[in-house]
């Protein structure tokens, strides 16, 4: 069983999704919901041993599985996780569970297809995080677009068609270039698609730079980094709540993970050489997008822009080369913690907005006001998540941002100053929105008719709140798992790969 844990994490949700799909139309909606919940729960449970059985003192790949898949091309079904990826598999299974609960009553038409899409997507995303073969990674990475495209397009808002096609084409463009890069590396590595072989491969500067450009297209679009971020607000705004939760909590992380797994170790010299580009783009995302978030009138858009700003922090942390040679371990670890934290917080923020949207059917800040009078329990939870989004100490949002700023100070004081502004902007746009929506007089009859959260919503909020607070107060389990892998990565990146 332990030998196939990662396969289980991938295939259990996919099979569950197919079973849900097979139960037919909406007349079985009740059954489909329970089946989906069972599938998501089982999918989450099989990832628990990944945490409990993880050897924290090792930087190598664990839970490895290796089978030949397409032997003519030397493509293997090779899975494994290290400290960089293991949390994302667990986080993803967790988020899927939340998504199933979040869509329980809200989704009324094509329930089975909705649940199935998320379950299948969950399995595919786990596959992308666990793949150690470049083509296997690519297959999962791309196949994931299909369910997401359908989710946005079928259950999305009024401009869903535009948003879904934009989402698909943006991400498809990036990944196609990566495919070319993978094939190029395949020949350089003497006929191997193993990611770890790519890591060891010496490459000239030009080749590294071109490979880095290809990876940049794929992963920067996914993160998303400024200026290729424009698909995200559209996709988020039009996606249903569950879609937004998965997008923000997981798929964005896949882009950042791509930098860790591919760009940095495969092209370390080019990464060092061009780190300033990434730093500048990240700082633009942090500062400029923070301003953009401030002026949003749509709550979902506001949180979407805040995601871009927070992800700017992540990429900033990745490309902090201290004294021009080594990566900064504080910054990298902080960035990964930030990714996990943002997974919880953004999922929670989108869920909260979803709760209000389901009642009022508006995402405009102006349509709300005084919600606290009618939904006190909800308002308290929303407060916690808003604070976490702003990076308040004690919540998970603080830990990562603090580490990244700490790392930045060691590298360049001005980077740190600019990065730290996110703490101010984050607080400004999140809390200002919170104030306008939650406090004040009851704004209109829609708000006056609001009912507080039901049991299902309460359950989701509690689970997410525990995660956010737990990670904020005691982040050690998270950092312990990644510590050795991060140090290994930093050592690896510090070695030049240029042919001597």
């Amino acid at each position, binding site marked *: 069983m332990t030998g196939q844990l990662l396969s289980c994490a991938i295939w259990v949700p996919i099979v569950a999704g197919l079973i849900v799909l097979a139960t037919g139309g909406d007349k079985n909606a009740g059954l489909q919901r329970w089946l989906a919940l069972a599938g998501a729960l089982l999918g989450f449970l099989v990832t628990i041993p990944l945490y409990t059985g993880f050897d924290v003192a090792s930087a190598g790949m664990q839970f490895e599985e290796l089978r030949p898949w397409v032997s003519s091309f030397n493509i293997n079904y090779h899975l494994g996780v290290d400290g960089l990826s293991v949390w994302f598999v667990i986080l993803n299974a967790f988020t899927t569970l939340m998504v199933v609960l979040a869509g329980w009553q809200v989704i009324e038409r094509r329930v089975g297809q909705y649940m199935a899409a998320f379950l299948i997507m969950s399995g595919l995303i786990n596959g992308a995080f666990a793949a150690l073969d470049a083509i296997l990674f690519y297959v999962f990475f791309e196949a994931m677009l299909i369910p997401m495209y359908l989710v946005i397009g079928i259950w999305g808002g009024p401009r869903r068609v535009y948003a879904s096609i934009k989402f698909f084409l943006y991400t498809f463009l990036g990944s*196609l270039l990566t495919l070319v890069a993978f094939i190029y590396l395949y020949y350089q590595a003497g006929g191997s698609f193993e990611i770890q072989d790519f890591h060891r491969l010496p490459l000239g500067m030009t080749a590294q730079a071109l490979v880095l450009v290809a990876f940049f297209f794929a992963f920067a679009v996914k993160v998303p980094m400024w200026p290729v971020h424009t698909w995200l607000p559209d996709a988020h705004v039009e996606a249903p709540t569950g879609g937004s939760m998965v997008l923000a909590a997981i798929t964005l992380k896949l882009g950042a993970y791509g930098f860790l797994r591919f760009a940095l170790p495969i092209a370390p010299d080019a990464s060092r050489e061009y780190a300033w580009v990434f730093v500048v783009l990240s700082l633009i995302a942090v500062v400029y997008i923070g301003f953009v978030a401030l002026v949003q009138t749509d709550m979902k858009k506001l949180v979407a822009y805040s995601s871009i700003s927070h992800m700017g922090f992540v990429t900033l942390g990745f490309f902090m080369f201290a004294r021009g040679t080594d990566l900064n371990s504080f910054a990298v670890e902080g960035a990964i913690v930030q990714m996990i934290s943002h997974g919880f917080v953004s999922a929670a923020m989108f869920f909260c907005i979803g709760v209000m949207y389901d009642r009022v059917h508006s995402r405009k800040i102006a349509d709300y006001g005084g919600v606290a009078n009618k939904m006190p329990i909800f308002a308290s939870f929303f407060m916690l998540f808003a604070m976490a989004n702003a990076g308040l100490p004690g919540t998970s949002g603080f830990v990562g941002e603090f580490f990244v700023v700490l790392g930045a100070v060691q590298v360049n004081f001005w980077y740190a100053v600019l990065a730290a502004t996110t703490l101010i902007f984050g607080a400004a746009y999140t809390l200002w929105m919170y104030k306008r929506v939650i406090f004040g007089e009851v704004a209109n009859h829609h708000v006056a008719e609001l009912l507080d959260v039901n049991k299902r919503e309460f359950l989701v909020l509690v689970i997410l709140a525990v995660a956010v607070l737990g990670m904020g107060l005691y982040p050690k389990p998270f950092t312990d798992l990644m510590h050795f892998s991060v140090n290994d990565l930093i050592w690896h990146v510090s070695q030049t790969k240029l042919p001597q």
Partner: protein
Amino acid sequence: MTWTSLNAWVAAPEIFLFCATCVILLLDLFVSDAKRGITHALALIALVVTGVLLVYGYSPAQQFGFSHMFIADPLATLAKVGMVIGVALVLIYGRSYAIDRGIFKGELYSLALFSLLGMMVMASAINMLTLYIGLELLSLSLYALVALRRDSVESTEAAMKYFVLGALASGMLLYGMSMVYGATGSLNVFEISQKLLIDHEGNKLLAVFGLVFIVTGIGFKLGAVPFHMWVPDVYQGAPTPITQLIGSAPKLAAFAFTIRLLAQALEGFTPEWRQMLVVLAVLSLAIGNLTAIAQTNIKRMFAYSTISHMGFLLLGILVGSAVGYAAAFFYAVTYMLTAAAGFGVVMLLARQGFEADRLDDYKGLARNHPWFAGMLLMVMFSMAGVPVFVGFFAKLAVLKAVINLGMVWLAVFAVAMSLVGAFYYLRVVKLMYFDEPESSGALSGSLFSRVVLSLNCLALLFIGLYPNGLLSLLTDAVVFSLPL
């Protein structure tokens, strides 16, 4: 000529198919319109037997027949198996369509079988004249099939265009062949190849001049830009089963034909024809994909999409090595399956007085017929090259071969054009899944054809999950057949 050099057994499937087709043609005279199903069944049986003979006769060696005018090598045999499957799918999917349109006649079957015979000869011929005869048998059958709906203005117009342009291309090809003959003094593919290798500079100019015309002819038969003008009109004007016939199996025949002429006969001129094919491939990818965006008719959209896929096929061929030919072969086989499935769904939705050929006819299909919407979704994502469907591995194989040749820019261009292509495939998915249905259309087609269609579509997923079997089979076939 002695009996040993005749060695007719290597052509057993062709000989059987020819006899069976003649018998069906004669028997059909005595069958009334109401019992036309007999012809249909007989044609399918003939195809099955031909397929069995092919598989039975498969051996990993080169077997010559008819005084070195005919060869049965693994490449030809596998291509022929693919063609038989392709034509069988046409007959199965097209049955109720043909009944509804009043073209459920003996001609349909005998002409389709004759066109298959032409394709099979094209795959196995190693003499310029035999190649040409195969090509003409295929083309003439197709001209007549396009015009099968005699009272339809569109069909007759399409047939006329196809015939005039096709005849022109055949003329070009023949002219090119005659020059190559002039330069080498032989019509045999292997002898030409040897003569050109020995006496490379002697008549080079003449042979290259001939090569230009041969590439023109090939470009026309594949439907590559700038020789693509006939494709959209013929695809749109022909009855849908005939569109499927033109769009699936003959691509395999054209692939084998190209291999015989360029990779075998004119092997010595690889750098020369590679340049030409690069131009054809780049133009086909660009114009095919960009023009497909503007289409509102799904058959026309498929036509432009075929053009772009032929660009990809050419990319594989122009690599000029076993890796490239194997990639192109895999591409051709999987494209044949994908296109057949696509047209199969179109015919399933078509019924009396309703062609289901406008893109808008697919609105809300997921609501009315979720299963077949899912099937068409697989076809679309496979054509777009999204994993886990087989189209991804086809594109991966070709890109891999192109990058191995060192032409990374060409690979980048090809993927950029795939992105453009993804847009119009996504639009079909959008219509099916995101839009509300305009009418609740019933499905035509028998249970049998629906099951076959579903299996056809699921095969795209299955081969995408386990591409290794087919891939290594085809690669081995190419390696055996082309001792490079």
